[in-house]
């Protein structure tokens, strides 16, 4: 089931791969990131975490932390809005860029993105108008993508000739060429230029494939060609094209069915049986397989193997009946159960929406029928919304819890601030900045006086000063005068030496003191503002905490309200998805009922033929 679904999804993806390519993202990788916070938004973006990326970007922008990448940030924001399905916001961001910048290269990038945004919304006229504003300053990858986008827009509006002209002139990367060629072939055929269209598809159909995507595209080209030739009543050429399609792949079943019809058209009914019987063994949900259930008895009847044909029709009826019963059971299960939640059982909530497609289907009775529906853009889009709403709900739950914690934190801080206040006040009370300054001024004055009078003793060390005082005291007292000449001479020598020593060191000591004073000034200069800040914090903190508490109180009900709205939107989205699924299941059922009617009619014809034993009359083709 998984691989089968994957094939289906793959078919859709390849067709729109070019449109989904995040060209604007590629451009953002070029060059050095010069704003850390812009780089941080990119870090989340490159991990496909678009919500965080956009949130970080908006915060950084508001906090003025994006200086060098303002335009890039706006472009990224626009692209993220787009990825997030916020088309209006994306357009607003892009238009703001257009208003604020006169850079022609930036204008081109913005018009290009606006064109892509409109295209994705299905506003094809608006998309083409925006793309027409591009003036030729796009980077190479975007310049290559633009004509493809314009061509797809034109095709969506039924302007196939215009699309073909754009594609014929296209130049771009070699690996995009198969898609371009396929679209060109389609555009040409739809514009009525069958010959050239077929030429393009044939070229693609013969082209060596480098990878699975190329092979799938080549199959599609051959399949389209095969049915084109069948439509133009050229079964031989149809056969040639259809037999090029691989036996396994998204196009295989329809190719096998077509091969059968081509052989049948060539009156090779026995040959038609082989591909059709091959289909019998395949998944009976597939339309081609279901049709083969009727095609086989049709071929048998054409071979006049009436009894085998009758048996095959009866088998087909039984198969349709069984399938209808399963569909009924699936519809009942879907009506009763949580269809959407069941679909998301295998979903990884961490994966971003951009690349997200439901690739793993749970094997429930209802989901078995939904693979084709899920492959459709509308259902995928709706399921994507549902998934986003789930994620947003979880996100709001997480914030709700954190906000409660913040509330407790603020309460604890208020309490702590109240308890600390007396201690802080006590400490502040003993700090007298003015006294400190006065002491510094006294020291500076003293140093000035010393310098002015070259007072070498003023800068003496404690030891020198003590010694100096002792010598001075001796000199002043009577004892020295009465002492012998030798003692007085020694005193004189000692004092002279000490004076010489202090004089020798004076210059250095003065410099040292002046430097210490400068350092002191530096420290003192910091004291005042620091003290001021402490006083401010002391005064402001209660109000700050109060303001934080108010913010928390204001945010809390908003979260609750949004949670309710998200839940409501999710329920509605689930309802829409469910309705789509039910419609699809009913369509499947209707088709099977129609096949049943055809089988009954063909059986009746065969019974009539047997009863009358008349010359064989043709059994109606299935679906006629």
């Amino acid at each position, binding site marked *: 089931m998984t691989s089968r679904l994957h094939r289906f999804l793959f078919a859709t993806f390849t067709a729109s791969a070019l449109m989904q390519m995040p060209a604007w993202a590629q451009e953002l990788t070029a060059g050095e990131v010069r704003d*850390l916070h812009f780089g941080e938004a990119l870090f989340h973006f490159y991990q496909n975490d678009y919500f965080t990326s956009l949130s970080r970007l908006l*915060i950084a922008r508001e906090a003025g932390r994006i200086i060098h990448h303002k335009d890039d940030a706006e472009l990224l924001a626009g692209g993220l809005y787009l990825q997030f399905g916020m088309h209006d916001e994306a357009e607003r961001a892009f238009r703001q860029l257009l208003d604020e910048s006169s850079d022609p290269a930036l204008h081109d990038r913005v018009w290009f993105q606006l064109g892509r945004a409109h295209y994705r919304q299905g506003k094809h006229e608006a998309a083409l108008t925006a793309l027409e504003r591009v003036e030729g300053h796009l980077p190479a990858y975007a310049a290559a993508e633009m004509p493809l986008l314009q061509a797809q827009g034109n095709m969506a509006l039924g302007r196939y000739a215009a699309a073909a002209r754009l594609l014929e002139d296209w130049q771009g990367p070699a690996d995009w060429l198969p898609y371009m060629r396929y679209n060109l072939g389609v555009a040409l055929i739809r514009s009525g230029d069958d010959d050239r269209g077929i030429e393009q598809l044939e070229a693609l159909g013969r082209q060596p494939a480098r990878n699975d995507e190329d092979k799938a595209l080549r199959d599609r080209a051959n399949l389209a060609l095969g049915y084109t030739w069948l439509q133009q009543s050229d079964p031989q050429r149809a056969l040639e094209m259809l037999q090029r399609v691989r036996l396994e792949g998204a196009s295989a079943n329809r190719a096998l069915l077509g091969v059968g019809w081509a052989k049948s058209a060539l009156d090779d009914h026995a040959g038609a049986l082989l591909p059709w019987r091959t289909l019998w063994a395949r998944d009976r949900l597939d339309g081609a397989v279901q049709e083969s259930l009727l095609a086989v008895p049709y071929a048998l009847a054409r071979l006049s193997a009436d009894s085998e044909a009758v048996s095959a029709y009866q088998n087909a009826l039984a198969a349709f009946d069984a399938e209808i019963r399963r569909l009924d059971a699936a519809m009942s299960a879907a009506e009763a159960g949580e269809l959407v939640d069941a679909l998301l059982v295998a979903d990884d909530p961490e994966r971003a929406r951009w690349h997200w497609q439901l690739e793993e289907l749970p094997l429930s009775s209802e989901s078995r029928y939904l693979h084709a529906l899920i492959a459709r853009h509308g259902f995928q889009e*709706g399921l994507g919304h549902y998934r986003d709403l789930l994620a947003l709900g979880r996100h709001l739950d997480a914030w709700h819890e954190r906000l409660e914690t913040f509330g407790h934190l603020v309460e604890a801080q208020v309490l702590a601030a109240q308890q600390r206040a007396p201690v802080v006040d006590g400490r502040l009370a003993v700090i007298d900045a003015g006294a400190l300054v006065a002491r510094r001024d006294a020291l500076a004055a003293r140093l000035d006086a010393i310098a002015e009078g070259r007072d070498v003793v003023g800068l003496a060390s404690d030891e020198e000063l003590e010694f100096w005082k002792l010598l001075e005291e001796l000199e002043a007292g009577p004892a020295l005068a009465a002492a012998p000449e030798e003692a007085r001479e020694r005193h004189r020598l000692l004092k002279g030496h000490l004076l010489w020593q202090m004089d020798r060191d004076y210059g250095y000591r003065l410099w040292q003191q002046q430097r210490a004073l400068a350092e002191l000034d530096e420290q003192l200069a910091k004291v005042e503002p620091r003290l001021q800040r402490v006083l401010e914090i002391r005064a402001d903190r209660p109000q700050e905490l109060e303001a934080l508490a108010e913010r928390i109180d204001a945010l809390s009900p908003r979260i609750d309200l949004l949670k309710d709205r998200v839940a409501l939107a999710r329920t509605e989205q689930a309802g829409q998805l469910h309705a789509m699924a039910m419609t699809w299941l009913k369509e499947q059922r209707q088709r099977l009922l129609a096949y049943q009617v055809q089988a009954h009619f063909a059986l009746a014809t065969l019974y009539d033929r047997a009863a009358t034993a008349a010359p064989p009359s043709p059994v109606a083709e299935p679906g006629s």
Partner: protein
Amino acid sequence: MDMKRMRMAPLLIALLCISPIAAEQSLDTRIQDLRQEILHLNRELFMLEEDLLFPANTQVAVFLSMDVGEFFALDSVELKLNDRVVTRYLYTPREVDALLRGGVQQLYLGNLRSGSHELVAVFTGKGPHDRDYRRATSLNFEKGIGAQFVELKISDRVSRQQPEFLVREWD
């Protein structure tokens, strides 16, 4: 005749015409509005968180970026502030890829008082020739009154065929 259904037109339509479903439009618009409001709310909540837990006057944020990465495959980073391990981060391949493409990771967000601080980052990974590689880089910085941002940058020094680990302060 079912053959008609299998002809080219539906195939091409299925392939080329992708358009949103009209019935979803009003719900779609409402979901857009919801996303917008939640984004605004999210922004306010983040700012509240920052104001509460990491006020600007004490905030310090350490970022990590990579340039090229040819000579070094990052496994983990250990960050120390003033000799205390504040974070140890083990990288996933997706994160490394995001870094290599130009993303910048906010590795640490915390608080520091103003004054002198020392930051040491120890990078572990595979160096040239796929050898185990462990290298540290450090920065002494002065934390002022405003928020302090520091960037750790891993780049290739082609001339030496070695990785280079840089650290710098941002204004």
